[in-house]
């Protein structure tokens, strides 16, 4: 058996087909670009910094609004220190807060961006975040080496786009885009088909694709999906019994963190009416957010109380575009400095 010929044929076809595949996806810059994607590996690099952080340091926690609206580079320009960015797109930050309080001795400042439909769900919604935390504690040298080796590939190849979005380019996502008649309703959170509308840098800041600001139909792609999914959030009356226990869990963590000298500031970033109507349906501010802030006794910033927080138009109803995020971060940091929650440093 002579296998040289099949090997050469396979090599040539593989090179041609993979090049064509890469070039094809490069023709769609509105949706795809090559960058080191956020993942449990990149998150773990930031999480490792917590173990050596001092009381001067700042940690950002939150879901996607923290990622899109607060930019750590601008934060550094304004305050002088780059915060540790532990925000995680699409996940309840509760598990990450719990990790910092219970598994570290960090006693600096934590800025928690609260998206009510993420933050106020019961502790059972922490499981996804725990997977990342477990990865941080259990990652092997092989994992670290693998991630290190994947970086140049991810930075340069568009075809490696894999961001947990509906339109990812890995084979599983591509296959799952084939749609047949629905047997089970997909109008539930698990069936979310959200097309990627942003990308991240290596400090895990999120940036909205320019297409989202430039054309209404791109915005509609996202807001229609919010409408389809969020319409199913339960009414406050159906879940109100779980809220006191959730608030109590956070209060215990906050008290523990404060007792060792830590500071916490909560931020409620803006959401447009289209989104907010669903958030108010399940977690009305007067019954949940206000009660929470009153219980935990932490400084807080609500977008309705500050003009600089509410002046932007959010293309997808929930997040800021990249340019707005820069001025917003600058204003937010200055406000925090003014209110003496953080100090301007000269570093």
């Amino acid at each position, binding site marked *: 058996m002579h296998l040289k010929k*099949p090997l050469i044929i396979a090599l040539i076809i*593989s090179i041609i087909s993979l090049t064509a595949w890469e070039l094809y996806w490069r023709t769609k810059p509105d949706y795809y670009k090559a960058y080191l994607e956020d993942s449990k590996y990149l998150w773990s690099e930031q999480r490792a910094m917590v173990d050596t952080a001092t009381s001067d340091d700042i940690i950002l926690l939150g879901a996607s609004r923290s990622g899109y609206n607060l930019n750590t580079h601008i934060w550094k320009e304004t305050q002088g220190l780059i915060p540790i960015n532990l925000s995680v797109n699409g996940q309840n930050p509760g598990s990450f807060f719990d990790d910092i309080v219970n598994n570290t001795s960090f006693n600096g400042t934590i800025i928690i961006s609260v998206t009510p439909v993420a933050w106020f769900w019961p502790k059972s919604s922490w499981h996804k975040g725990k997977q990342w935390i477990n990865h941080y504690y259990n990652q092997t040298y092989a994992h670290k080496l693998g991630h290190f080796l994947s970086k140049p590939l991810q930075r340069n190849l568009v075809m490696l786009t894999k961001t947990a979005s509906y339109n990812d380019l890995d084979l599983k996502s591509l*296959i799952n885009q084939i749609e047949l008649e629905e047997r089970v309703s997909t109008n539930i959170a698990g069936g979310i088909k959200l097309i990627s509308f942003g990308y991240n840098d290596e400090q895990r800041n999120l940036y909205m694709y320019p297409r989202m600001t430039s054309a209404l139909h791109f915005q509609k792609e996202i807001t229609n999906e919010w409408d389809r999914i969020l319409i199913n959030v339960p009414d406050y009356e159906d879940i109100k019994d779980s809220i006191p226990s959730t608030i109590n869990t956070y209060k215990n963590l906050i008290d523990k963190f404060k007792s060792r000298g830590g500071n916490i500031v909560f931020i409620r970033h803006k959401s447009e009416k289209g989104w907010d109507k669903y958030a108010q349906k399940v977690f009305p501010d007067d019954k949940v957010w206000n009660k929470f802030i009153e219980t935990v006794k932490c400084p807080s910033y609500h977008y309705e109380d500050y003009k600089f927080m509410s002046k932007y138009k959010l293309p997808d109803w929930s997040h800021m575009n990249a340019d707005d995020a820069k001025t917003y971060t600058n204003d937010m940091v200055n406000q925090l400095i003014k209110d003496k929650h953080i100090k301007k440093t000269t570093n």
Partner: protein
Amino acid sequence: MLFNSLSFVLFFCIVLVLYYSKLFNWTNKKRMLLIASYVFYGMWNPPLVILLWISTMVDWTAGKRLAAEENQRKRKMWLLLSMCVNLGFLALFKYGDFLLENFVTIVNAIGIDFQARPMDIILPMGISFYTFQTMSYTIDMYKRKIEPARTFLDFALYVTFFPQLVAGPIVRAKDLITQFYEPKKATMNQFVWGLFLLTIGLFLKVVMADTLLSGTADNVFSSDKLLHGIDAWVGTLAFSGQIFFDFAGYSTCAIGIALMLGIILPDNFRYPYASLGFSDLWDRWHISLSSWLRDYLYIPLGGNRHGITRMYVALMITMLLGGLWHGAAWTFMVWGGLHGTYLILEKLQKQYLPFKITKWNGIFLAFITFSCVNITWVFFRARKFETAWNMIKSMFYMQTDGEKILQSFDIIKVCVVIGILFLCHWIMRNTSMKEVSLKTSPWVLGIIWAVLFFLIVIAQGSGEQFIYFQF
């Protein structure tokens, strides 16, 4: 380190460069392979390499003494020492919590109030594989079936050889150690065929198991609801395919990688889902484990030499322990027990209701065998009895109003993949990939190879662990 990871690609490239460079003589090449094997294992959890060292030292010493010692009592003691250390590691690391949990249950059942904290000991990757491999060496030495390894290096490399260290095939000393005695170098054809096997193995794991089937299997088996019959069957079929592709994928990678170094490892799978009955299944599924269990458990328990009843008992014990080898849970025992029952029923059928297998009834028999195997996978995959029992009830429509959780597309995808898998196994059951490739034009082979590689790349495997690593 996982075969389906970039770290392994780099690691293996370095190994190949060093192995085929003229820097080292054969002894130093073996030393390099040994160090590489420790690195391969240690990249996961470095301290656990110590277990490998202890296992290696104990069995090397025991083997040497067994070769030199004439006193039967002393020989027995050396064998016992080796067994105690190897099985002791397994008992502590793999079955510690299971034994403790059952001890607490029994003690509580007799009225003593006793609680124990789980030990939560980390399970060393592949411990069941390398302990069985080293045990086979000392047992064969005790029975004087093999010569002792010529050097410690040869033996250490036999225990640790990275392609098959963590998930087999479980290779016998006579088949592997002897290959280390003379310099080995893959021929060009062997090297390229090894690369082809590595591609096939990665395709089975990354594309077939992880991309096409794992999601459906995970959805179904992680559901705490009583499922609709179709969902239960499709989830089970998905797992059936996933575990085959995952494990056969690993074995194929291991064989390919070893072949690229000029080392030949035995086949571990021979199209098992086209088996004609259960004896046939165990000649085709995880062959290196089933032959290990046959030679070191079933035959010593009496095998078929002491009458029918004893044979059935030996068969059942072997399969129950085979189940327990896979994991420390009663669900694995049930899995083994079901296979034991199938084997006994098959022997009874052959005795009292014999029939000739023709090409017409063959595929039907293979389908029946495959269906019965699927029922056992429910117990293998479910973490709790409750889940398994709910699945079985759903599969046999013993409850109505089961919940639908799978989309039409998932059902079609799984049925098509499993259907093709079954037919491929049926077509290939009396041949081999090598024979087929010999009859295939180089162009077709090259195109198939390119398609497989393309799909592996775009699948972008996230480095999912192989299922059998946990065993």
